[in-house]
């Protein structure tokens, strides 16, 4: 058992709670930086993919995990970030400006969209954002002069300060670029949650009425949260576009939106870790399934069997299991295990029990 004594109010908002924690995160950082020398190009690409998903997951986590607003339409903002980044690049804007600008554009559009939409609550908000996601596909097709319509766009070559970065030519540089963005977003996110604004987000999630009573401007704060969320997701979208090389309206379809949402649910809503756990699962699931399938068909000598759509099927079954048995996600399970050992032998079964409540309709006020 470890006791952390708090001696000042600052101890509550320190980045690391105690030294061992700092040590482990630094070790993780070293490992992540060393990855290009440890993995071959294929798995490095997969790692890059996971990091991109993690950025997108962090973006949605700000909104859903910490502000409590469900969005099923964030692929639309990924698309916006991706297209604006590539269009800026094509017009000769250097990457170092185009990339943040794409995030900014997405964030501003996010705020504009949020103002009318965020008047809705819960399920209605989910449905409205779902509609935005569906609409975005058609809008991309209509805006063909800019977006290339159905045939899509392909990401141009780009460089940072003269160093050309290419997903296939220099996968390690692309990995470092993604890692850099991830770390910047992570740092910003972590600090946001220590700042008054981030606390206001959490207050809104836990109870809008009490947040209002504490002087939080609900509409404004929700809109800012939506904007930040969209900006981060937009950057993830830009990276995804550059990573994929070519994309069209179907790349950022509604399934991607839903997958993004489901990803952070599996990872664990309300924690930054959740975004990364979710990204790991979604990134490596296809590989794991493929390996399992090959292994099974080798054992039973079935030859190569392919079942279309098995990824989403397995993913959905995992999700159902999580919703039923571990609503707090992978991170929640990890916290429980850690608590078990930290408190050994005093862990009680009901420690993480969630309050159940009888439902009342929202239609009667």
């Amino acid at each position, binding site marked *: 058992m470890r006791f952390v004594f708090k001696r000042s109010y600052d101890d509550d908002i320190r980045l690391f709670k105690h030294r061992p924690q700092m040590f482990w995160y630094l070790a993780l950082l070293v490992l992540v930086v060393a990855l290009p020398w440890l993995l071959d190009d294929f798995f490095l690409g997969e790692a890059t993919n996971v990091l991109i998903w993690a950025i997108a997951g962090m973006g949605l986590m700000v909104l859903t995990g910490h502000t409590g607003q469900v969005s099923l339409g964030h692929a639309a903002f990924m698309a916006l970030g991706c297209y604006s980044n590539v269009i800026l690049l094509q017009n000769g804007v250097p990457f170092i400006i185009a990339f943040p600008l794409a995030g900014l554009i997405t964030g501003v559009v996010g705020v504009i969209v949020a103002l009318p939409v965020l*008047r809705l609550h819960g*399920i209605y908000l989910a*449905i409205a954002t779902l*509609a935005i996601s569906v609409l975005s596909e058609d809008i991309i097709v*209509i805006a063909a002069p800019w977006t290339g319509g159905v045939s899509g766009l392909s990401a141009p070559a780009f460089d940072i300060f003269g160093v050309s970065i290419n997903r296939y030519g220099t996968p390690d540089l692309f990995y470092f670029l993604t890692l850099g963005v991830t770390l910047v977003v992570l740092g910003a996110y972590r600090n946001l949650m220590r700042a008054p604004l981030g606390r206001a987000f959490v207050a809104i999630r836990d109870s809008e009425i009490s947040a209002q009573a504490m002087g939080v401007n609900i509409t404004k704060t929700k809109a800012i949260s939506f904007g930040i969320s969209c900006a981060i997701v937009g950057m993830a979208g830009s990276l995804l576009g550059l990573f994929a090389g070519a994309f069209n309206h179907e790349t950022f379809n509604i399934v991607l939106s*839903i997958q993004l949402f489901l990803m952070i649910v599996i990872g664990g809503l309300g924690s930054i870790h959740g975004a990364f756990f979710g990204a790991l699962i979604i990134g490596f699931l296809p590989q794991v399934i493929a390996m399992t399938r090959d292994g099974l068909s080798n054992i039973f000598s079935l030859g190569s069997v392919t079942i279309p*759509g098995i990824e989403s099927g397995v993913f959905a079954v995992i999700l159902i299991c999580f919703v039923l048995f571990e609503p707090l996600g992978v991170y929640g399970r990890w916290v429980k295990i850690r608590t078990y050992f930290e408190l050994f032998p005093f862990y009680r079964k009901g420690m993480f029990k969630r309050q159940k*409540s009888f439902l009342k309709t929202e*239609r*009667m006020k």
Partner: protein
Amino acid sequence: MDIMQLVVSGLANGCVYGLIALGFVLIYKATEAVNFAQGDFMMLGAFITIWLVNAEYMGLNFWVAVPIAIVMMGIFGYLLDVLVVRRLFGQPQIAVVILTIAIGFVLRFAVGAIWTHEPQLLETPFAGGIANVGGIVLGYEEIAVIIVTLLLTGFLFLFFRRAKLGKAMQAASQNQLAAYYVGIPVKRIQSLVWALGGAVAAVAGILFASKGAIDPSTGLLGIKAFAAAVIGGFGSLPGALIGGLIIGMVEPFAAYALPAGYSQIAPYAIMLLVLIFRPAGLFAQMQNKKV
């Protein structure tokens, strides 16, 4: 006459949307949960019927197969609630949303694995029949769709208004605790609603598959039916039907009047407008409590 033809085809499509929306509303009205898998329920119902009826599978008589399929979907809905959804009783609504989205994925995958991803058409006895009513050409399927939808909506509307069970369902949704106090077995009622939702989805699926080919991804049509339910006001049965009809009518006219590409947007744009300006829908269920 062109316009009338558009109206009729819009009506038939709208009825199918309305039927799926009816399923949403049923479950929402009685359990406060939104079943995002309703479109996939419809797709499953259609495929079960195809499996029973079509010559290359079981080859049963159509009129024997339809009740079987409806009952099967009813049992499916009931079991789904008892085994899976009920475990989330007392947890936030959004948990059920996530669960039903996942169930939708699983259904789409399972149906695709069993009956392949090829589009298939239901073989109905009235296929290809055409009635000419005052110069408007109507397929028998379209007439069947319209009649069945009207009957079903009317039946369900009266069921919720008059029948004891229907009232119990509404009570269970409005306030679970109070419903328990007056002796309503809330959990069993909810399972029955899921069964009803499954049965309605089966009817919608049968009608859809008799009108045109269906494949597993058709379940995503549920999103359009969502638009219908939202326009009508989530929680109102006639509202769902009218919302479906509005969507169904808008589509062909938008395709007729607007340049290509814009017409798909119309239903969702209408839905967004309704959500923003009249979040309770056209047939608002919101009401203040009478003291």
